[in-house]
């Protein structure tokens, strides 16, 4: 059986691309970096759009990255059903380019937040979360200033009705409440999928919680879910 092939994008200002490369690599997948000026992908099964400050966050977070040559290929790949994960700045880029609905606004309290945060798995009906338990609380670091997810009421209802909310901010027992919301995100949303369920965007960093040398390993199951999803189909 062949290995799962990951492509990790790198923009000027990306700073989580190496972590996003490292974790799939040590899990014995094939991983390739893809520079933003490339006009073709490297034959991926799945693409990670990593965190950082692409193009210095100029204009709006992710607003310039969406015009980069490689993002046109990512859009085609996603439209054809390919799996894409956007983490942090990657989530911002995916909303800017229309692969995911809504937008990431400045945190309600204007601070850059860098801390461990619990998020509750809201749906296991995705290639990214099917090995988690529903409502399971995960300890996953966040590090952002623009993570305040916003969508209009009609869009929010569509996310809720279509089971597209993947993660919500919660306490260590998985209780979702506004008091555990670090950034003011509407409906405590930390991560969503698109309607076809092949594109995931999330503000927390699972790639920073996937090794035994760090304090949480709760991101490992996300990578295990992806690997199993492909292995069941190869």
């Amino acid at each position, binding site marked *: 059986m062949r290995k799962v092939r990951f492509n990790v994008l790198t923009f000027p200002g990306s700073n989580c691309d190496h972590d996003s490369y490292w974790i799939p690599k040590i899990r014995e997948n094939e991983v390739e970096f893809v520079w933003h000026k490339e006009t073709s992908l490297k034959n991926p099964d799945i693409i990670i759009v990593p965190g950082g400050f692409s193009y210095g966050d100029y*204009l*709006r977070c992710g*607003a310039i990255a969406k015009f980069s040559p490689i993002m046109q290929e990512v859009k085609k790949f996603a439209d054809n059903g390919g799996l894409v994960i956007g983490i942090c700045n990657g989530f911002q880029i995916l909303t800017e380019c229309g692969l995911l*609905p809504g*937008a990431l606004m*400045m945190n309600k*309290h*204007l601070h850059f937040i860098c801390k461990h945060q619990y998020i509750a798995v809201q749906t296991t009906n995705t290639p990214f979360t099917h090995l988690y338990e529903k409502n399971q609380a995960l300890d996953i670091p966040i590090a952002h200033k623009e993570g305040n997810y*916003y969508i*209009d009421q009609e869009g929010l209802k569509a996310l809720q009705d279509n089971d597209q909310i993947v993660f919500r901010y919660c306490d260590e027992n998985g209780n979702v409440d506004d008091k555990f919301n670090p950034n003011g995100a509407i409906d405590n949303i930390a991560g969503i999928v698109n309607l076809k369920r092949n594109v995931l965007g999330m503000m927390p960093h699972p790639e920073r919680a996937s090794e035994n040398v760090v304090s949480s390993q709760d991101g490992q199951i996300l990578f295990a879910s992806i690997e199993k999803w492909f292995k069941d189909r190869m």
Partner: protein
Amino acid sequence: MFKAKIFVSLKPSVLDPQGQVISNALHTLGYKDVNETRVSKYFEILMDTDDFEKAEADIVNICDKVLANPNTEVWTYQLEGVK
């Protein structure tokens, strides 16, 4: 040549935390009449053409596709001739 003056503002329905902080600071300074502050972005773009209609069409496209995020922002512009 034309100069476009473009304002990109948050939709009224979108919370503006920066604006709220500025309002609070203004209240602290004694400006008690300040009711609300909204932060916007202002752009000036020079268009190197004598064709007003083309300049206007380009500016509308630029606002729509690049300068504003239609999920959260609205935009207005003025276009004036400059030498």
